[in-house]
């Protein structure tokens, strides 16, 4: 499998790996995928009082493209409002990382992870 | 050491040293399995892709039209049995002078309900027109006619035959093993005329034994004959023989690139040989103007071919009395009998098949030796007859 330079770069130096403390204020978690499918992504966002995503963390069980996709979205969601974050499309992720067709599902999963994290935040804190 | 002169290039050719050099790393550090996903495997995969491109380019085909197999016999088997398996049994027409790897699968198909018709040759070795037209009228489903005959070197006008066969609704295959590198060969042109598939092989063109290809129009449905890991697009399973395929690819490239200059040399040698043969009263079989430039198939009246071949071997000339594969069978060549050659004369058949590494000097030496033997054997024969 030939990976793009950008995938390799994220894979070698993943950004924002880890988890936030459970008790931390404004933290929400999106967990998508299933081990049997070969991918599980956990994306956490930390939302400030102003509604802006201050920080993000991820952990991913999956191939290099899945790891790179989730690493990339932790960078992209930072500084965005929840609605702006929801505008991130898998096609943008796939394009940025030059994912081959067989790896498009990784970018879809990353988009789903954002949606799941935002939903978790809104569920915990109905506006 | 005394090195015999090799005049049996239609059986197999010496390996081109440049080809050998290209192969050796694949018997050494480049040993990966092309299916493996690590660096060793990827290196092999790249070499395999290159070999496929070289073969395709050399014969005017697309890389995805090339199916690598272990030899010409396998390619012929794959086409005939694989294509027949996907068709309702019908008429299969093959020329009577085909290689056993076409004739025997045809016989096998006959047992499975196919009608098999052997196309008769005319006296010059080309297909007899009447028989060909009569066969077309029977609407064959499959036709296989070799481009150049291994024994006689006679060339068939395969493009014209294929066009007619195609109009009659047949799928047309040609065994081009002996033609590659010796006459111009372009699959795209042949395909446009109606040729659906063709067989080529490495060890007849300075490549190694163990590598060959079926070049085929992808629209033809072929059932794999060897199943397993799904290599060659599922058409031929088994770990790729990378060293041989690397050699095959390069040999195709070189044989085709150097064909024209080689042909002139072969033609000059063959003319020299055949004019001497005429002086000896030999009959040279097959159309004089429609043969491979390297093949002379002849008989000296009253002299047994097997005996002559054995004497020539002792004198240091490696020639054949028939095709290598059928050297086991005794009795006169079926190909010659089909051409209407008298059985006694056919028993005298000897095949000289030249390579570009041969020299005019070797031809002269051969003619000299042959003359002496002919004289001697005829005298013995005369003694035997009078005794």
């Amino acid at each position: 499998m030939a990976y793009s330079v950008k995938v390799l770069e994220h894979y070698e130096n993943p950004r924002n790996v880890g988890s936030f403390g459970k008790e931390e204020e404004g933290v929400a978690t999106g967990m998508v995928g299933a081990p049997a499918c070969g991918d599980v992504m956990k994306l956490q966002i930390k939302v400030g009082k102003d509604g802006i995503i201050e920080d993000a963390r991820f952990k991913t069980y999956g191939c290099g493209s899945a790891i790179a996709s989730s690493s990339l979205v932790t960078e992209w969601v930072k500084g965005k409002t929840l609605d702006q974050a929801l505008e991130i499309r898998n096609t943008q992720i796939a394009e940025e990382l030059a994912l081959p067709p067989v790896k498009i599902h990784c970018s879809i999963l990353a988009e789903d992870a954002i949606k799941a994290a935002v939903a978790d935040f809104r569920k915990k804190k109905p506006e | 050491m005394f090195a015999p002169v090799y005049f049996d290039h239609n059986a197999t050719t010496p390996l081109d040293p440049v080809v050998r050099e290209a192969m050796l790393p694949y018997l050494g550090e480049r040993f990966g399995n092309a299916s493996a996903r690590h660096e060793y495997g990827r290196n092999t995969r790249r070499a395999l892709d290159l070999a496929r491109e070289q073969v395709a380019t050399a014969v005017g085909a697309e890389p995805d039209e090339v199916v690598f197999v272990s030899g010409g016999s396998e390619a012929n088997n794959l086409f005939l049995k694989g294509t027949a398996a996907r068709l309702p049994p019908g008429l299969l027409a093959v020329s009577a002078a085909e290689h056993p790897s076409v004739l025997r699968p045809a016989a096998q198909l006959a047992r499975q309900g196919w009608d098999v018709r052997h196309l008769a040759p005319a006296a010059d070795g080309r297909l007899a027109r009447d028989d060909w037209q009569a066969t077309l009228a029977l609407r064959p489903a499959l036709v296989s006619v070799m481009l150049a005959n291994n024994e006689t070197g006679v060339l068939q006008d395969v493009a014209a035959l294929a066009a007619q066969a195609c109009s009659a609704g047949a799928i047309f295959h040609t065994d081009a093993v002996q033609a590659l590198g010796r006459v111009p060969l372009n699959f795209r042109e042949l395909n446009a005329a109606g040729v659906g598939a063709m067989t080529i092989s490495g060890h007849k063109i300075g490549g190694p034994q163990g590598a060959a290809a079926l070049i085929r129009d992808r629209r033809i449905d072929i059932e794999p004959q060897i199943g397993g890991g799904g290599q060659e697009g599922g058409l031929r399973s088994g770990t790729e023989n990378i060293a041989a395929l690397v050699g095959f690819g390069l040999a195709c490239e070189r044989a085709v690139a150097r064909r024209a200059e080689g042909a002139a040399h072969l033609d000059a040698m063959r003319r020299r040989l055949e004019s001497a043969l005429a002086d000896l009263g030999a009959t040279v079989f097959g159309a004089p103007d429609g043969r491979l430039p390297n093949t002379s198939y002849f008989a000296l009246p009253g002299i047994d071919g097997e005996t002559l071949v054995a004497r020539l071997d002792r004198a240091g000339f490696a020639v054949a009395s028939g095709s290598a594969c059928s050297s086991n069978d005794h009795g006169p060549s079926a190909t010659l009998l089909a051409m209407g050659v008298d059985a006694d004369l056919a028993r005298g058949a000897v095949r000289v098949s030249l390579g570009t590494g041969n020299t005019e000097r070797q031809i002269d030496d051969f003619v000299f030796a042959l003359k002496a033997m002919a004289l001697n054997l005829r005298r013995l024969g005369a003694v035997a007859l009078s005794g």
Partner: protein
Amino acid sequence: MVKLPIYLDYSATTPVDPRVAEKMIPFLVEKFGNPASRSHAFGWEAESAVEEARAQVAALVNADPREIIWTSGATESNNLALKGAANFYSGRGKHIVTVKTEHKAVLDTVRELERQGFEATYLDVQENGLVDPAVFAAALRPDTILASVMLVNNEVGVIQPIAELGAICRAHNVIFHVDAAQATGKVGIDLATLPVDLMSFSAHKTYGPKGIGALYIRRKPRIRLEAQMHGGGHERGFRSGTLATHQIVGMGEAFRIAREEMAVENVRIGALRDRLLKGLSDIEAVYVNGDLEKRVPHNLNISFAYVEGESMLMAIKDLAVSSGSACTSASLEPSYVLRALGRDDELAHSSIRFTLGRFTTEEEVDYAVKLLHQKIGKLRELSPLWEMVQEGVDLSTVQWAAH
């Protein structure tokens, strides 16, 4: 200094032993004759080399040289044995027994025979990868004509109880084929005593060249086959077509070396394999696939739980290993062999097959151990599954939002 990547994929293919290459080269230079050419010295020389090689192959497995025929490889041998026997003996019955963990060359061929009207039973294996002889015996029917079981599995390296299974076949008048492509030079094979009728061999898994293999066809009692490749009548009509003399010579030499050196070599390689296993056994949540005792000394197949297979291969690209068999790893399907052993998909996905060989060194093994510790650690740090397990979550109770 170890040379990277380290080759630990000897079951996919082996390098040609330099001694083998040396023996082959004259046949790529001056000894280029076609062994079927009966009219001159070039042909005779090739023919005599071919016969010497045949005797060498026969000697490794204690067979008569007349029982060995050349093929283009074990895949062709398997195809010829199964199709050839099934077609020849189809008058006797139509049932074939094989095992779910066989090589694709056997499974694909049996499927093809099913399409031709034969019936097949694909036996399960036990959790250790071995066929239970009682299950095997129970699967035989009055119309069973043929059974095929591999001697050594290519993925997990387990050694099947061929002698026992063969005896069962004899008792039921069933022809027994054994794919021994992975076995030569690794386990002793004595066909004078083994109740086996047909056996497939490959050169390139035993330090010989690619493109050449052999099929053993028993003479007493005589086994008949319908030829699958027709032509000039080479190989006593069983297999037509010019096969490469240099490759045949290479296979002979490779099998000669195997016979002479396997006893010593297997001890050395077994020690290296054990060193690898010991080095990895302090990593948490690793599982060895397949029986460790009834196994060739070259193979270690391990699942590293909670890391995904493809990213693991990426992380350990300095090790040339395989996940699943080489022939199927182009697809992302988890290994069907590991599935047959009862491994779930995640563990199958995260399995690595290490196969060691003649040129593997202690340094290489130590390097691999160190690298795996480091990379598995890194990937688990990235793994949400590992985190959950550390927190005491039972993953089997989690409701996954599968997409």
